């Protein structure tokens, strides 16, 4: 559930971060094909991306982001070895975070 894979690469003065989170991302609109009952909504609402403890980007999502979300962003600065931390919180209050070093 709480698996986040992060790849961060610095080139020139920009750093590109790519990450994959594992999450069901249920919209709450989908129905169970066997029982016909709606599958309750369960999706990531907020993703916070930090570089050296400074927030670089905050993403707010609805259930419209695909299952096992992929996210990529870029920022100025950042050098090899700097820590990148990404954490998410979903609509059930569950959360996860992971960190990686810029390569």
């Amino acid at each position, binding site marked *: 559930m709480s698996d986040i894979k992060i790849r961060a690469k610095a080139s020139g003065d920009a750093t590109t971060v790519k990450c994959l989170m594992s999450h069901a991302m249920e919209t709450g609109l989908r129905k169970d094909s066997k029982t016909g009952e709606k599958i309750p909504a369960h999706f990531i609402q907020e993703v916070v991306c930090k570089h050296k403890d400074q927030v670089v980007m905050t993403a*707010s999502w609805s259930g419209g982001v695909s299952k096992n979300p992929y996210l990529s962003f870029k920022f100025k600065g950042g050098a090899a070895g700097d820590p990148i931390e990404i954490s998410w919180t979903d609509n059930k209050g569950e959360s996860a975070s992971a960190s990686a070093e810029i390569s």
Partner: protein
Amino acid sequence: MIDAKRRTLLKGSLAAGSVGAAIGAGLLTPQLALAEWNEAAFTAKDIPTAMNDLLGGESAETSDKIKIKAPDIAENGAVVPVTVETDMEGVTSIAIIASKNQTPLIAAFELSESALPFVSTRIKMAETADVVAVVKSGDQLYQNAKSVKVTIGGCGG
């Protein structure tokens, strides 16, 4: 006398019990931690409402400085890769909207000063529609759209 004491004791334990329950409820509801999540915007059924709730403006100037990279034809609406990039200065937020989804607003990205105006993610699309990107630069809103043909919808039902 004994009776009165018992009552106080009962009252006391009841009060403690309800406080405990309140704290428990507070911990269970994710409201506090998610104060920033804009529920009104993300549950809005149409784009103007969503944009107004999220960015404080219903309309945005169309700008071809916003580049949206998305497939012309998406075979699977459950996974549509979308990249939004612009060369504008001072971009503070980027929103991604799938115009025909039940709740069109999909994602909103708040960018700090160091972040470059670039985001890439994968979204679900219910049917063939425009993917709209709204960029806030200074106090101005800009938007651009790209049509994506969806052959299998990704929002279930």
